[in-house]
């Protein structure tokens, strides 16, 4: 559903490539997390998968990105939007400012796709229900809290039912209950609709619990790609700046004291940690 080959990208007037030789293939229905230090290229990858690079950001792009059957460089963003959705890092940037209510805001993207009014309302309401915003449907988008705006941004893109959904730190403004709900919605989309989902995130515990596959970006390169546990266990000994859950850190500290066998793979989740320690 997504293939990236030989992707190199420079933002305008920069010397160092933001992405430096990315090769990647993602199947339909996969839920993939992307981690890495700030500045490693996570947001840039999000833009590249959705055509914002090079269409909006300019710069120099080498290589090829295909998403939902489109060569993103050769497809206008307006046409890509039906199949490939992006939820921006800062939800405040996503709100159109062109609509008075939350419901209209969600319907806005659908109008642009030419969806029938009846179907449009149903799809918008369904997206609001899924993100827990149903009660706020008639409010102005600008009266929402940061967390609510972030859920609105997700709802607006969800309603378009893209085959590929890319989200840049979609839970940064959400509390734990909101974060759990967002991850459940995303997993549901991947499982039931076969939506292909790529998201960047700093919350490693949530990623470990929900994603199928984890990518690590470091200085513009893809340095690890695999199941969350093995990737995060490896990351502990690497200079990638990915961090670790406290479950990982606790067992790592125990291993240093010889309380856990040397070759034990470090755990990432609570269940894995208990299994190692019992």
């Amino acid at each position, binding site marked *: 559903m997504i293939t990236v080959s030989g992707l190199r990208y420079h933002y305008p007037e920069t010397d160092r490539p933001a992405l430096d030789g990315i090769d990647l293939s993602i199947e339909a229905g996969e839920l993939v997390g992307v981690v*890495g230090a700030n500045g490693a290229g996570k947001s840039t990858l999000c833009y590249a998968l959705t055509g914002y690079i090079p269409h909006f950001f300019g710069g120099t792009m080498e290589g090829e990105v295909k998403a939902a059957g489109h060569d993103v460089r050769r497809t206008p963003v307006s046409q890509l939007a039906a199949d490939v959705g992006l939820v921006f890092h800062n939800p405040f940037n996503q709100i159109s400012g062109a609509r008075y209510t939350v419901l209209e805001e969600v319907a806005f993207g659908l109008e642009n796709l030419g969806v029938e009014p009846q179907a449009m309302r149903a799809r918008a309401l369904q997206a609001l229900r899924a993100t827990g915003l149903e009660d706020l449907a008639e409010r102005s988008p600008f009266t929402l809290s940061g967390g609510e705006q972030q859920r609105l941004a997700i709802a607006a893109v969800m309603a378009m039912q893209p085959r590929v959904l890319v989200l840049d730190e979609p839970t940064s403004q959400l509390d734990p209950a909101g974060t759990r709900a967002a991850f459940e919605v995303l997993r549901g989309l991947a499982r039931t609709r076969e939506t292909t989902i790529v998201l960047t995130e700093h919350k490693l515990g949530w990623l470990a619990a929900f994603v199928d596959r984890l990518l690590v970006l470091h200085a513009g390169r893809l340095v690890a790609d695999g199941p969350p546990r093995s990737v995060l266990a490896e990351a502990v000994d690497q200079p990638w700046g990915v961090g670790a859950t406290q479950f990982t850190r606790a067992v790592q500290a125990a291993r240093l004291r010889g309380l856990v066998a040397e070759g034990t793979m470090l755990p990432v989740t609570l269940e894995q*940690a*208990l299994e190692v320690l019992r």
Partner: protein
Amino acid sequence: MKLELRDVRFRYPTGVVALDGVNLTIESGEALALVGENGAGKTTLVKLLNGLLRPTAGTVLVNGEETRRQTVAQLARFVGFVFQNPDDQLFARSVREEIAFGPHNLHLGEAEVRARVEQALDDVGLGAAIERHPYDLAVPERKLVALAAALAMHTPVLILDEPTIGQDAQGVERLGALVDRLQAEGRTLISITHDLDFCLMHFDRVAVMAGGHILADGPSPDVLRRVDLLRQAQVEPPELVQLAVGLGWATMVRTPEAFAAQLAEGRN
């Protein structure tokens, strides 16, 4: 510097009651984390402490005096505030200018202002960005600029609203070290946070809020082990607490190293 809320109620003009009878005393030099779901009243509470809001009923005392009798400018000398969204507070054309603005308003000499700016940027790890335009920086870095601006004021009280959001692992670690150091210097710290792992490691006291009330308040290892109470407040217990509870431990630990030490003791 002591801060005190006595039977405080706060109702927004929309009719929403954000705080419904809150009593809280924060002694000089304490590090308190406020936790709870979005809408629990945490931000309202801290805005009462720096005078951005005044209580609908009850009393808020900063340094023994009611905030009602002090202007926001007066309170700003005591209480520094770092917003969750840096764009709510940044305005200058360079990072240096941004951070120097507050100290200039305190009528400090040039040399003192320069020293404070450099120290504050060093504290947040942004020394190299001093001549940049704040809006050329990424959001997490802008947050650190906002934090540096507050640090440069040398206020006895510092309030941080969700400091770790958007920071990567290294950024969170640096913030933790900074919190520890400010505490060692005797500053009073109050932080709103959803990051309970951070909270457990760096804040000695925690108050759990829900629906405009304080549900629990005490030493962080004691409060954060009350898993049922935390879940009731829609708060996820710290990972080390989940681990200790999962192993059936009665004692709580605050760091991975302490966890390993405790594990070693149990096996001897």
